[in-house]
């Protein structure tokens, strides 16, 4: 190449290439490639119901309660119940929490549920004949807890004739007998049961399998039997004196209180255990006339399986907590008089319990509530392990299909998990009971947010400039704070942040120009919906254009 200019040149014009910088494919420098992947939003991933929270939140945001309910129904037929009694797993990882404060999802769910109860219109589905029959399938659900009711609801909506049997005098299972009224108002539950009955579901209370009728007799007269009998009886304490009058299981105690059989609560009550049942029982005892309530748990406070929200409520009700102590013996001649405890080394979940020799205490008490777990009632009813595991359906000799759901399968869980179990069982049964699956698919959770949905308003992002959110009274305003995580909703933040102009807005969406993306990862870090990921991707060889 000859040298440009001469020795005495005073000015060389700048080098200007007639081709634009587009020829410089800086994307060749890239080691990581941005990839857009729709995923479950954190709330949805944590929800036992896998509820499409951003989907119905979008409807609430627009004030369209009917559509919100229609979307909600695909995941959860009882938002009023979960809106009161769910432990709101969804809220713990809410992306909005990283911005200002996690969205109050449960309150909005409650609002949708109460709207549904108030605006309920009879919308009975036409019954469909079962596979190979000329009448609709008859389904008997044993147990009217959340799992039983949810399966009954879905099966009825799909065209089955459903009967629910309940051994207690009131329907609702743990909803009625286990969850205290201060957590779930009885009116709300009763309204929900009325709706179910209006839908054509027959609920019979006070009938017990094995006592009032036999399983085989039921099986002869129906196409499917669903066992949603719950987790069963309280486990015994297995210490000397655990059979004295005045010792009760937590589930039994809550049932007494909730069904108003007049549980005689007075004097000092000791609750043994650290789960939700223990805390509920302690709180109920404190609110039902006990002078003093102690909750004794063998591990530390942090290790309690109970939901922190419940623990706090218990403290406010006057429950006194004693941690790192185990029950040794219950004393009394005719009734419980006192209980002796040993102190143990502080431990976390999974650690071995070690008594500290010589250190202990005694509490004089009139009642001891055992809340150390429940033992299943299902094995007594069904001998088949695959049924008990809830994985598969079995067919009895009569051709009746047998399936289990809810706490009977999973052990003690929570209302949301039980409703999910009921839904799953209903969908499984539907595959067996009917030929085609049109109606079922309408109840399957499917859709993702459409592009452009889920955009958060500027006002919502600036609570210091605009009026504070009023979640409890104005659910619509609270819903407007939802980021709509999990799906790209075309907000354009990636486009705004890309320092290389390697993201272009084309045909209604943002597209990566990978020829120029250097893989810096700023877009992925900034994406508010969390759908951009940096991945090491093999690039097929790109040629550098010749100058």
């Amino acid at each position, binding site marked *: 190449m000859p*040298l440009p200019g001469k020795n005495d*040149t005073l000015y*060389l014009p*700048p080098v200007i290439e007639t081709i634009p910088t587009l020829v410089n494919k800086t994307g060749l420098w890239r080691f990581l490639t941005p990839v857009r992947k729709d995923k479950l939003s954190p709330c949805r991933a944590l929800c036992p119901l896998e509820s499409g929270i951003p989907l119905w939140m979008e409807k609430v945001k627009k004030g369209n309660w009917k559509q919100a309910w229609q979307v909600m129904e695909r995941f959860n037929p009882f938002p009023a119940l979960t809106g009161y009694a769910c432990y709101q797993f969804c809220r713990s990882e809410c992306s909005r929490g990283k911005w200002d404060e996690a969205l109050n999802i449960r309150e909005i769910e409650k609002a949708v549920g109460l709207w549904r109860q108030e605006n309920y219109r009879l919308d009975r589905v036409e019954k469909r004949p079962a596979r190979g029959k000329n009448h609709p399938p008859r389904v008997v659900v044993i147990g009217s807890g959340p799992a039983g009711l949810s399966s009954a609801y879905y099966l009825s909506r799909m065209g089955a004739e459903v009967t629910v049997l309940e051994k207690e005098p009131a329907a609702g299972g743990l909803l009625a007998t286990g969850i205290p009224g201060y957590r779930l108002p009885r009116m709300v539950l009763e309204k929900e049961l009325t709706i179910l009955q209006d839908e054509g579901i027959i609920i019979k209370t006070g009938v017990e399998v094995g006592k009032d009728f036999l399983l085989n007799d039921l099986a002869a007269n129906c196409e499917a039997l669903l066992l949603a009998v719950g987790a069963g009886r309280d486990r015994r304490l297995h210490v000397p004196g655990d059979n004295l009058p005045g010792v009760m299981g937590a589930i039994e105690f809550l049932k007494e209180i909730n069904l108003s059989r007049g549980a005689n609560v007075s004097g000092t009550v000791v609750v043994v255990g650290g789960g939700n049942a223990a805390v509920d029982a302690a709180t109920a005892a404190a609110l039902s006339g006990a002078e003093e309530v102690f909750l004794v748990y063998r591990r530390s406070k942090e290790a309690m399986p109970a939901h922190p929200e419940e623990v706090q409520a218990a403290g406010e009700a006057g429950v006194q907590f004693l941690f790192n102590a185990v029950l040794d013996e219950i004393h009394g001649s005719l009734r419980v008089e006192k209980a002796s405890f040993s102190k143990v080394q502080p431990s976390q979940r999974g650690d071995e319990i070690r008594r500290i020799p010589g250190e202990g205490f005694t509490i004089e008490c009139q009642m001891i509530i055992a809340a150390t777990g429940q033992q299943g009632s299902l094995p007594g009813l069904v001998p088949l392990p695959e049924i008990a595991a809830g994985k598969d359906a079995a067919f009895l000799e009569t051709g009746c299909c047998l399936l289990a759901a809810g706490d009977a399968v999973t052990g003690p869980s929570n209302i949301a998990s039980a409703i999910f179990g009921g839904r799953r069982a209903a969908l499984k049964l539907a595959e067996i009971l009917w030929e085609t699956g049109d109606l079922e698919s309408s109840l399957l959770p499917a859709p993702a947010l459409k592009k452009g949905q889920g955009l958060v308003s500027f006002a919502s992002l600036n609570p210091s400039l605009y009026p504070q959110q009023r979640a409890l009274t104005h659910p619509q305003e609270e819903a407007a704070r939802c980021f709509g995580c999990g799906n790209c909703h075309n907000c354009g933040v990636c486009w705004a942040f890309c320092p290389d102009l390697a993201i272009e807005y084309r045909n209604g969406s943002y597209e990566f120009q990978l020829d120029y993306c250097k893989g810096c990862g700023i877009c992925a870090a900034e994406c508010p919906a969390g759908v951009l990921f940096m991945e090491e991707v093999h690039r097929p060889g790109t040629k550098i254009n010749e100058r």
Partner: protein
Amino acid sequence: MNGNQAAALAVKLSRAQVVCAYPITPQTSLVENIAEMWARGNFPGEYVSVESEYSALSYLIGAAYAGARTFTATSSQGLAYMHELLHWASGARLPIVMVNVNRTLGAPWSLEPDQRDSLSQRDTGWIQLYCSDVQEIMDTVIVAFRLAEEVKIPCMVIYDGFSLSHTYEAVQLLRQEQADLFLNPPPKSALIHPSRPQTVQPVTDYRYMARVVQAGHRAMMQVPGRLGEIDRLFAEIFGRKYSLAEETNFGNAETIFVAAGAMAQTVKSFLPLLDGGEEKNGLLRLRLFKPLPEEEIVSILNKPFIKKLVVLDRNLSMGIGGVFAQEIKALLQGTGFRGQIFELNLAGGIDLTLDLLRRGMERINAWQDGEEKIIWGVDL
């Protein structure tokens, strides 16, 4: 008016088309004056505020490529922040004009008018003109536009913080028609345009680069001559005469002070007070520093009756000494100059007083072989 107002007015009279600056500290009121004129609709060009000095010069580089007459202003840390782009502007030969108001570079923070900020940009390929009074600031800004556009080299107009930037002096205003007569119309040649996407200054190899820097050097060597011509034109139109290096009292003075900026003006007024009118002391004021007008300075200084040179530096290149002193020593190397060269160093922004100058001269007069030739203002 003060120096900043004078500069702002000169920018307006020069019909600068794009002014871009970072308006916050360490910026001076200069840009505020321009912004105010612009906001009132009294400014012919566009004024743009950006978020940093770095962005300001980047913006002007683009504007200059597009053929606009451009101006920015800064001070101390702001100039240092521009450093990378100073090289880019000079390498691309863009006639950008900038005012730098001398202020001490941190650490620690200081507001004094130390010259280190501009002198540490000595090798960036920019022309540097040092002003010594407010009138000269106004005149030099206009001169800088003409000079930069003629030689296609960016030009820095420099004056002392506070003692010129914020001090009010009587100024003879330039008239717009005079300025229009003096300045060529802004260059029309746009190297870039949005309608023609293209790559400006892509990667080259050493051969092209070698020619670019050589051409830059050759052009820089033309500056003293061109400035001399522009000064003559300026004198014709405006009636004020400037020279590349201004000499005072060179009759048969034994001691010559060498200074730049406001300090030169101060020394000039002290000369008769120092020797009681005996004209034993003279002054050489450096106006064009980068490039130094070698021929002129050597012919002025290389006189047999000069015994001592005292170079006043309100700056310091640590490990060497004052920057002006270093440059003067290099120029006189091999010329047969026989006098002693002393430095009176006021680095840190020390204010030059008559008392301080007298005590400095006592030290210099009592100097003996083997002693340090830097007289520290801070010790006097």
